């Protein structure tokens, strides 16, 4: 079902796409692909960047914590070493009733005085056995009730680190109150013959730890703090504020974190947390970086990214305009020109411009239009000519002058009782006119055309009182070929009136139809005066219809009609020798008569 819908949508889009103009398609395709590409690149780079930034910060934090851890660790180990060497090298196996351990203790204290407030040894009842530097014990302090004493006694195998507190065992000079971290452990002391338990206490200066942790500088508003295994804060850059309840810290939850990186949400803010556990003590170093500070970094990048996007869009728009100018617009102009052409504005100037291809198209279309125009003109002209020629030929079918004259002759014959001549002439006339009309067809068989001319010759012979002789011959195969009607008679007419005029009975006109090289030739030859070249040329020039003498069609008309029907390679061939004679030949192609009289 979903697939169907999806397919439909795709089809719709493609359809709309196809119907649109080139400009639209180019614009849209280009813009869409550019935007998609840019988004892909941009988004993936941005995501990578974000991931990178987070990774870098986490790594950074981790490095810093590692460093802090190393420093803290070595500091604590140093303290533990002092405790150990004090115990094993100084206190153990020394009979405290006999010997004093003050000197050695003092030495150890002096070498570590920057980190140690005091070192003290107590017996199992909490009695002070020795203290360096020399100090007075405050009265009425019950050692056995103190936390460090109790913890030391509880876990005899371990060294115990306390949470920070104010030193309150010994009097100090100048009313000083110092924050310390107590390192306590159980020891064995030898008192005379007895070996009993005691407690060795080293009060470490809090400032020692403070200095180590203070040095950690995190960027991006981050900070580092230290908690013990129960989550109690040992050091925090804003420690007193937490103690005064001005701010809070997420230390209790942080106890549950494992070493490494994680994120937490505290008081509505996201923070990146890095944790490292300090060896032996179980303390945890916590590095905190607020997410907001990291995001400030993003903002600059985001703004930058937006700018790049805006800039790219701008470039895309520019390119679109450029493409339009070079490609789509020229195509459109060309299309407009062609449209006008379609609507018949033949004189419209075709647009030439744009890229080379479009220019070329334009030029070609122009040439084609020119040719078209020319051809159309030719066709029109041709039609005109044909029409005119046919009009003439039509006209000639019935030439009044020839008719009058012939009828006159017939009347004279009848009046003079030359009946048989009259009959002959009437019959020939009838035949001549029948073929002239040929039921309106333009194309008739050669034998009909010859028959036509024979009858014409008969009539003319009688009228001119046998001034000439004639012959009409044809090859057998040409009789049924096709020809245009009324092509031979004008030639004969011409031969009579130019040739026979001055012949005294010796005139001869021969009409021969024959095939030569598969072309049809009908020759009309006379032995008359002949014509000089100028007259020959003039024959085909004007349409001088010899008035009153025949059909009235000139040779030009014959030539035109032949050429119109059959082409320019056909027509009349005139051959004349003055005083020798003239031969005018009709040259047409060999065409069979088809149904309907069409060629």
């Amino acid at each position: 079902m979903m697939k169907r819908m999806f397919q439909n949508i795709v089809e719709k889009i493609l359809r709309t796409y196809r119907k649109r103009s080139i400009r639209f398609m180019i614009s849209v395709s280009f813009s869409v692909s550019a935007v998609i590409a840019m988004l892909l690149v941009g988004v993936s780079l941005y995501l990578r960047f974000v991931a990178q930034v987070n990774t870098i910060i986490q790594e950074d934090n981790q490095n810093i914590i590692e460093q802090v851890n190393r420093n803290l660790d070595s500091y604590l180990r140093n303290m533990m070493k002092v405790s150990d060497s004090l115990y094993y090298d100084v206190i153990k196996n020394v009979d405290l009733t006999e010997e004093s351990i003050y000197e050695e203790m003092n030495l150890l204290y002096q070498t570590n005085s920057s980190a140690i407030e005091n070192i003290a040894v107590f017996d199992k009842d909490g009695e002070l056995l020795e203290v360096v530097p020399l100090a007075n014990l405050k009265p009425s302090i019950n050692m056995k009730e103190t936390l460090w004493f109790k913890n030391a006694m509880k876990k005899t195998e371990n060294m115990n680190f306390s949470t920070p507190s104010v030193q309150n065992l010994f009097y100090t000079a100048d009313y000083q109150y110092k924050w310390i971290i107590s390192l306590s452990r159980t020891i064995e002391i030898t008192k005379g013959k007895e070996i009993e338990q005691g407690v060795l206490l080293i009060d470490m200066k809090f400032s020692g730890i403070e200095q180590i942790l203070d040095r950690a500088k995190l960027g991006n508003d981050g900070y580092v703090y230290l908690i013990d295994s129960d989550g109690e804060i040992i050091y925090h850059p804003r420690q007193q504020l937490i103690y005064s309840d001005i701010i809070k810290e997420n230390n209790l939850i942080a106890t549950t974190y494992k070493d490494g990186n994680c994120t937490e949400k505290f008081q509505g803010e996201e923070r990146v947390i890095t944790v490292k556990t300090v060896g032996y003590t179980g303390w945890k170093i916590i590095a905190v970086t607020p997410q907001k500070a990291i995001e400030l970094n993003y903002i600059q990048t985001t703004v930058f990214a937006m700018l790049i996007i805006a800039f790219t869009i701008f470039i895309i728009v520019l390119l679109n305009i450029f493409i339009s100018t070079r490609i789509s617009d020229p195509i459109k102009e060309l299309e407009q020109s062609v449209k006008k052409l379609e609507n018949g504005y033949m004189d419209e100037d075709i647009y030439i411009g744009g890229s080379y291809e479009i220019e070329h198209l334009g030029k070609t279309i122009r040439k084609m239009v020119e040719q078209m125009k020319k051809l159309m003109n030719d066709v029109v002209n041709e039609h005109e000519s044909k029409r005119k020629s046919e009009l003439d030929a039509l006209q000639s079918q019935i030439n009044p002058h020839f008719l009058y004259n012939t009828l006159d002759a017939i009347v004279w014959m009848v009046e003079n009782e030359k009946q048989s001549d009259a009959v002959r002439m009437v019959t020939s006339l009838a035949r001549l006119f029948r073929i002239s009309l040929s039921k309106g067809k333009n194309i008739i068989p050669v034998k009909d055309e010859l028959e036509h001319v024979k009858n014409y010759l008969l009539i003319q012979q009688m009228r001119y009182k046998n001034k000439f002789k004639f012959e009409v011959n044809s090859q057998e195969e040409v009789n049924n070929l096709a020809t245009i009607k009324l092509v031979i008679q004008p030639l004969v007419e011409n031969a009579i009136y130019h040739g026979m005029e001055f012949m005294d009975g010796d005139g001869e006109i021969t009409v021969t139809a024959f095939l030569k090289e598969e072309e049809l030739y009908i020759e009309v030859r006379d032995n008359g005066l002949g014509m000089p070249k100028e007259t020959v040329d003039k024959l085909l020039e004007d349409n001088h219809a010899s008035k009153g003498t025949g059909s009235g069609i000139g040779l030009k008309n014959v030539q035109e009609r032949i050429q119109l029907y059959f082409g320019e390679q056909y027509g009349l061939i005139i051959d004349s020798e003055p005083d020798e004679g003239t031969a005018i030949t009709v040259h047409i192609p060999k065409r069979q008569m088809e149904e309907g009289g069409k060629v």
Partner: protein
Amino acid sequence: MKLRTAIFLMVVLLLLSLFIISSTDLFIPREDNEVYDISVIINDSDGERWTNFRSGMDQAAKEMNANISFVTLYDKNSLEQQIELLKREIDDGADAVLISAANSKKLSEALNEMVIEIPVLAIDSKLEGKQVKSYISSDNFKMGEKLGQEIQKNAKEKETVLILKSNMNSSNISERYEGLLSVLNNSSHSYDVLNLDKISEKDKVSKILLTYLDENSPDITVALDESTIEGSLNAMEQLSTEEKIHLYGIGQTNRIVYNLEMENINSIIVSNMFTMGYLGIKNAVDAILQKPVKDKIELEFGVIDKENMYSIKNQRLLFPVP
């Protein structure tokens, strides 16, 4: 085409300038790196009672980028000197001032007459005025009450009380006094008042007290501020153990705490001076930035004696982590 070219050029220019701006810091909402000059004018000639306050003050200064002038008087309780110093600090370009008033009423009047454009915050003693944005202190009346209750708790019935009445012009002292009386008046203890007026030098106080003690034998002596307590301690050094008086007081210095531990003082009421310093500076910066500031901030206080001074809560109150 001309218009088109013009638009084109404008857009190019716009983009270029945006590009340049974005690569600088103008675009990024970064925190101001501005430093705020804040002056703190106290009502003492030394800073002994202000040690914890200064710890808090320094912490806030670090966090908020503030530069602090901590100004002491030549003579404690001098109104004139305070006014003069206030003017001087303002002229020196202070962005805000914290004052512990020597004379609450008169200083408020003086403030109203001065043209002050910077925020003023009152610490310890009250101040009135439209430039006074906040009053940060423990409830002095309650502290006085608590002191009275402490005396009641520890003293035997009908024991007599001597109240050392110091500078009542500071509202903190007067309120403590009122609070104390409100309890003592309803108790079985009769009391006498020794008027110290503006005298605060420890030796002078000591002399006055000793003179009084020549004639009188109160069971309990009450001091309402540090200098009076220390003056009393000075006096006590002159006395023999039989003559020792039970001393109760409000205030803290290192010497006072030491003597508390030595049982020369029975109990003290201690205000959270660290918080006063921290919140004082924090609110001053907020006031400078015209952010809303609470007009009254009440600080916690504690009743400290030898037994409880090293409890976790109290050691944090008495000895702020450095």
